């Protein structure tokens, strides 16, 4: 086990608790696809990425974009935990005039790097950003998370081709392979496999991991740094709703609503020691 891994697992648990708090009771919220990303996002913000909450626009910062913008909750939780803004903001999610919109808005939320939410556009934004950083000999890395359902968007593949064409080795595409989309199992709704072979055929360096195994996450992120001349992809196998047993692998919690009882149960499970296992 790598040093600091326990701390990161604790951070991920905290992010999940904050996500459940944000979803709250009786309101719709993108719980499932936010929880599936909690470990990866914790690894990035609390270990891997070079960034400074006191200086959110620091030029040499590493960037994280969520092409699957509906998972904004996990990024808001991480940004608050890092100190980009007061944790009290989380309660205002999706309220009128709130700095925390339903989808990421760089003009409203410190630490958000781009406006995403219309699926399929984040990899292009990230690739353009990576290309711009390269022009300035800026060594910052750009991470972009895509959903598996999102892979049906043709623009993703245009962006991957462009990333290989421009040798964007400062770009790392992370696939949140949680297997579910809004209306059911991704593989049953629309065939996107074979993903690994497609990424390889497009010319990316591909790593495949358990997206809830902190050691594997950190290893893959480090290995991605070593690749030169081409972009990398990390296929992270995850569980939608991870950490909240009744929401795990349930498409209903893609943008689901928690009852009072479910909310209490979820918080209790996350607060229990080793609640993730």
């Amino acid at each position, binding site marked *: 086990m790598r040093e600091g891994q326990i701390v990161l697992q604790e951070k991920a648990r905290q992010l999940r608790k904050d996500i459940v708090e944000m979803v709250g009771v009786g309101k719709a919220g993108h719980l499932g696809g936010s929880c599936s990303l909690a470990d990866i996002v914790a690894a990035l913000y609390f270990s891997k990425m070079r960034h400074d909450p006191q200086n959110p626009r620091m030029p040499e910062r590493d960037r994280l974009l969520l092409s699957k913008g509906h998972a904004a909750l996990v990024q808001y939780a991480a940004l608050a935990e890092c100190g980009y803004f007061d944790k009290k903001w989380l309660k205002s999610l999706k309220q009128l005039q709130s700095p925390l919109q339903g989808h990421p*808005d*760089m*003009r409203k939320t410190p630490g958000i*790097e*781009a*406006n*995403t*939410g*219309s699926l399929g*556009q984040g990899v*292009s*934004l*990230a*690739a*353009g*950003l*990576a*290309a*711009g*950083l390269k*022009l*300035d000999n*800026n060594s910052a890395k750009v991470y972009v998370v895509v959903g598996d359902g999102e892979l049906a968007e*043709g*623009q993703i593949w*245009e*962006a991957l*081709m*462009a990333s290989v*064409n*421009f040798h964007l080795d400062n770009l790392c595409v992370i696939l949140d392979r949680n297997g579910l989309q809004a209306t059911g199992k991704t593989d049953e709704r629309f065939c996107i496999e074979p993903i690994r072979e497609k990424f390889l055929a497009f010319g990316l360096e591909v790593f495949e991991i358990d997206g809830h195994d902190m050691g594997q996450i950190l290893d893959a992120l480090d290995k991605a740094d070593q690749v030169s001349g081409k972009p990398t992809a990390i296929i992270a196998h995850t569980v939608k709703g991870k950490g909240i047993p009744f929401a795990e692998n349930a498409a209903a919690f893609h943008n689901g609503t928690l009852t009072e009882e479910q909310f209490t149960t979820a918080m209790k499970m996350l607060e229990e020691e080793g609640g993730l296992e």
Partner: protein
Amino acid sequence: MSKHNQREAYGKALVQLGGENPDIVVLEADLGNSTRSILFQQAYPERYFEMGIAEQNMTSFAGGLSLAGKVPFVNTFAVFAAGRAYDQIRQSIATAKLNVKIVGSSAGFSDFGDGATHQAIEDMAIMGAIPNMTVLAPCDALETVEAVKAAATLDGPVYLRLCRNDLEDIFPKNIPYQIGEPIVLREGEDIAVFTTGIMAHEALKAAKTLEEEGISLHVVHVPGIKPLDEPAVLRQLSGKKAVITCEEHSIRGGLSMLISYLLRNEGVPMECVAVMDVFGQSAGSHEELMGFYGLDAGTICQKARRLLGK
């Protein structure tokens, strides 16, 4: 008067700006010879991105470049720039007010041979409806240079509409260009004619014809549909008996509707010269299409006479 090409003027202006500002970058979707973005590639190959025939990725990618502090100019035909990549402009760029310039080349009927699929008659309506967007439609090559410079200076998204074919130089050299500021091309007494894009040429021709009939047109070029300096437009109405709007664009959502709305309480008779909610088609020349769709000096003359009961 000599004729020049907006595309060529644009390409040269880009090269000049590229020399002054190292952050200017240019993206192209395999139409560089036509859009003349290729001139920038020849001058600054390291800042030129050939994106393949993939306008959607090109547009969001440009947004990403602007996130890194670059000033991207995105090039393709107007019909693809504003249509194919509409959602990328709206979502990736405009909601965040990113500093990206979208250049719609071969706009209106100027790509006369290629037919409806290549003729943008609704691009300004689409772009103008997007919050944060600026929409420019210069009348000739001289104004194109000014518009490109102004676009590069403005911090925010801009849509620039260019014509494919050579145009006479008509933009006055002694008037400073300002985005949204209407420019009087010819003083007149009877009818205020508001044009945008290349329609200024037809309005000036009509003014000459009507002068012999004792009708005086006051020709005002509007350098784009957004922003629109409304008080400045209203000032041009002073003493006029009627108004005509002219655009090589659909009646729906372009200059005509904006001016109509602006004049809703003025009680002034008005006619519009525009594309009346139809697609274009192939033809042997740009002029032929302009005549067929009633976007010519002859149509402006007819409407002027009707407005004055002559």
